[in-house]
């Protein structure tokens, strides 16, 4: 380092050296030394600050990007960056492009700290604040564009959301006032695109950002509030909204369940309008002692029968049907008791249930909540599953036909799919016989994608199975053999599967799978994947596999990433369930086509999960080939 000593000196050659080193990829080495030194020197010394600014300004344009990027990444804080770079971003066009466009909109790999540095730097000086506003507008444009939401990867969307929140945290009242209208418009459009998406992560991102924008523009009055589960990502996002020293988490949303005070305690407060309050209450017992005798004359009767009144649920299935369809609106207690008791009654009386199975299924599908029972949705679903497993073929026929009928709500159609999956799981698993296990129980608050958790669970299970297959472990007899039962799903798998796959391309007036209702299509595809997976060892599995391959082929270019993930899960299930020999003899050509499609997906699909699933499928195919080559023909 050199001392100016009152002389004019040019440091442009140092800038050249710096630039050249950075462009050759040695940013880390040189800036590791340079940045801390400059930080110290510029702390209080204005001259050094000017020198530093001159240094970066003189870097030739072709190397500016590398230098600026390096500085932004290395600087320990926004204020330091401000001291080091000065108003470079205003004076130099290239630097402006890098800072306001490239790092925010074209790249998305930088950490939150880097974002904080960058945006903090922009906010620290009034000349740069105009850039901050412009940056915010562009970020919001991207955030609210529906094509960006559909086609850009989740990581990029997270990055943009973080950037938006940090910008918002830096804005002052006046600035918010001036762009309030634009903020509002972008928020409305953006929230719509985000909620439209089928992926829960994107929905949550949209909700958090929309809430934050609403909070900023409506300082008094009602703000937008969504209901969602908080995870670490969300908490981190929310903490960005407040510019305080790090690790200060904004208090989370108020709990929806406020604990209610228990009822019966009686407040001992006499309220008197005119007279002064008398002292507290309870009269001593001594007074009654004197009159003890006369009370003892009255001998109490036996009161052991005085218990809590319990409404008896009906004991016969047909009685249940009468109560549930009955028009007697007064007997709500009985209706509640019936709903609670229905599942166990159905399981205990399979013969009686089989006589009225379709009627019961119809009643349950249309059953609406008459009174407020806890867990009504789950009770209804369990009863439906019980009916379906007791009499699978007619009830499956009914339910699958209703899936494609007019005048059902999306919720009801998705209910049908959920019930089919749960029943299939029960029928195909020997150890769950008799006791239903629930993956994906409904939670009480209204979520936008209820039950999508079940598809995640299944993905995990499928992944585990794939892992176990690729590693080829011989586990030996380490586990006790489970009692074997005939596979009840064998005779009915086809009845569950084929009717669902039949009419997907035939739109009805109220239901268009290939059009607006892509959410249901996504759920349908995931359901088919699960049914395929559960059909392992059944007779119909090959036919199901072929039909599924055709179905996947028809939909492979669908724009919704949730649907694509489902399609790839279908392929995984197919490869796992259909016996290898059958795949290679009956489906060779289709498989080859599928393989090339999977390769394409793996390289070019914007969604990370799709790429991962495609890779897994290709690995499974490889294993299949190897396995068959290993077997001597």
């Amino acid at each position, binding site marked *: 380092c050199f001392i100016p000593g009152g002389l004019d000196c040019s440091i442009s050659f140092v800038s050249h050296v710096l630039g050249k080193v950075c462009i050759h990829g040695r940013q880390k080495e040189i800036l590791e030394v340079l940045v801390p030194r400059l930080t110290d020197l510029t702390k209080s010394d204005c001259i050094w600050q000017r020198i530093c600014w001159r240094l970066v300004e003189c870097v030739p344009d072709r190397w500016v990007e590398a230098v600026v990027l390096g500085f932004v990444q290395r600087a320990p804080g926004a204020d330091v960056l401000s001291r080091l770079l000065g108003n470079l971003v205003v004076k130099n066009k290239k630097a402006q492009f890098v800072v306001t466009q490239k790092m925010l909109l074209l790249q998305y790999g930088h950490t939150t700290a880097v974002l904080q540095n960058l945006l903090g730097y922009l906010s620290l000086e009034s000349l740069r604040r105009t850039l901050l506003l412009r940056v915010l507008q562009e970020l919001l444009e991207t955030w609210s564009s529906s094509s960006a939401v559909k086609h850009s990867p989740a990581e990029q969307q997270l990055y943009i959301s973080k950037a938006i929140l940090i910008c918002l945290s830096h804005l002052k009242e006046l600035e918010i006032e001036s762009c309030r209208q634009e903020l509002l418009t972008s928020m409305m459009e953006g929230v719509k695109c985000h909620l439209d998406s089928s992926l829960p992560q994107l929905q949550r991102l949209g909700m958090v950002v929309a809430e934050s924008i609403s909070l900023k523009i409506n300082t008094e009055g009602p703000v937008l509030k969504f209901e969602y589960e908080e995870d670490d990502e969300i908490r981190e996002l929310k903490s960005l909204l407040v510019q305080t020293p790090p690790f200060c988490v904004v208090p989370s949303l108020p709990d929806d369940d406020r604990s209610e005070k228990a009822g019966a305690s009686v407040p001992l407060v006499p309220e008197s309008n005119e007279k002064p309050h008398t002292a507290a*209450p309870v009269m001593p017992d001594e007074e009654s002692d004197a009159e003890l005798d006369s009370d003892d004359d009255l001998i109490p009767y036996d009161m052991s029968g005085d218990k809590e009144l319990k409404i008896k649920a009906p004991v016969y299935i047909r009685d249940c049907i009468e109560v549930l369809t009955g028009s007697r609106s007064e007997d709500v207690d009985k209706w509640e008791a019936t709903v609670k008791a229905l599942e166990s009654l159905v399981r205990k009386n399979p013969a009686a249930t089989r006589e009225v199975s379709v009627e019961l299924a119809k009643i349950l599908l249309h059953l609406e909540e008459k009174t407020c029972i806890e867990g009504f949705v789950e009770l209804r679903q369990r009863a439906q599953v019980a009916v379906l497993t007791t009499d699978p073929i007619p009830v499956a026929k009914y339910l699958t036909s209703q899936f494609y009928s007019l005048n059902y709500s999306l919720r009801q159609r998705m209910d049908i799919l959920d019930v089919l999956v749960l029943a299939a799981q029960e029928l195909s698993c020997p150890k769950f016989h008799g006791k239903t296990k629930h993956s994906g129980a409904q939670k009480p608050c209204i979520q936008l994608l209820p039950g999508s958790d079940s598809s995640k669970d299944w993905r995990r299970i499928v992944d585990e199975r794939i892992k176990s297959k690729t590693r080829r472990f011989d586990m030996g007899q380490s586990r006790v053999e489970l009692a074997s039962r005939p596979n009840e799903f064998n005779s009915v798998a086809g009845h569950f599967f084929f009717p669902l796959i039949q009419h997907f391309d035939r739109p009805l007036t109220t239901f268009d799978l290939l059009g607006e209702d892509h959410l249901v299509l996504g759920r349908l595809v995931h359901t088919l994947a699960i049914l395929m997976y559960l059909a392992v060892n059944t007779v119909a599995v090959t036919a199901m596999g072929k039909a599924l391959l055709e179905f996947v082929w028809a939909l492979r270019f669908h724009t919704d990433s949730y649907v694509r993930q489902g399609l790839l899960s279908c392929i995984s299930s197919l490869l796992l369930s259909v016996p290898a020999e059958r795949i290679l003899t009956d489906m060779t050509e289709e498989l080859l086509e599928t393989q090339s499609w999977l390769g394409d997906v793996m390289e070019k699909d914007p969604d990370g999960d799709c790429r991962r699933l495609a890779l897994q499928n290709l690995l499974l195919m490889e294993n299949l080939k190897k396995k068959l080559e290993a077997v001597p023909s």
Partner: protein
Amino acid sequence: MALPPPDPQFVLRGTSAAVHTLHFSCGGPEPGIPLLFSGSENGFIHVWNLKTHRVDTALDGHGRKSVCCIETMGGKDRLLSQGRDQRICLWDLAEGRTSVTDSVFTEHVGFCRCSLLKVAQGRWLMAMAARSLEEVQILELPSKTSVCTLKPEAGAKLGMPMCLKLWQLNCGSQPVLLAGYEDGSVVLWNVSMGKALSRLICHQEPVMSLDFDSEKAKGISGSSEKVLSIWSLNEQQNLQVYKTHELVNAGISDITIRPDKKILATAGWDHRIRIFGWKKLKPLAVLDYHTATVHCVSFSDHSNPQERLLAAGSKDQRISAWSIYAQT
């Protein structure tokens, strides 16, 4: 070894509608037939002959709207009935007549039963809920002049009056009104001045029914929750909670204290009638006969203590009569 509870002495059937109110008329100077008046949901008032256990007369005066309260005014010949057709009717039943001599249009659409108090020979005070939702009107009968209107202060938010009881400590003293409201509080009103003397919040739910023992200055109230609340009135005319008692099942429709102040009966939504000792609220019996909500209970006014009865009317259209603790 406690005895099992007794069975009803007899059961009256034939109202063909839920029974909402009962009133005995068995005392009186002249030996006459003991009568029980019952008001039903179909608007009929049945006069039951307690010797034959049959209906002597059926009075139809409320346009098929439910009858919610029946009182006699000095003997069995003059009857007052309140119905949900917003009318209170005065009947003349002497010598076999069944005519409505007078009626008061209350304009009240709620369920609050009126309360009657004899203040002088031939003069009664009647408290009833008025048209405006929070007010109670006091009328003098038979002149039907308004004595006062008891309006809670603005912002008190008491809700509708649910049950009323007019009483006076002895003849000649000031009549006072106890009113139970929808917010669970009981208010003591001074009728002549029209002002509230004391307010006590006894329940978290609306007060369904209350009764008061003027000798001991103690009262009891029941609500739609599981708690019975006993409160007392001290010398400064302030209400204070004395005791609470928790029941097994929630909901009380009616409470009444026997005229000799020894026991009280409650009518429950769980189809059961409960008997308690009044002194210490000791539970004495649970009478489980009815198959639907018991709407009302009433003690008879027989002059011979041995003949005393307790009657209960229920939604299952039956009136059960019990002879319980009649010997004491």
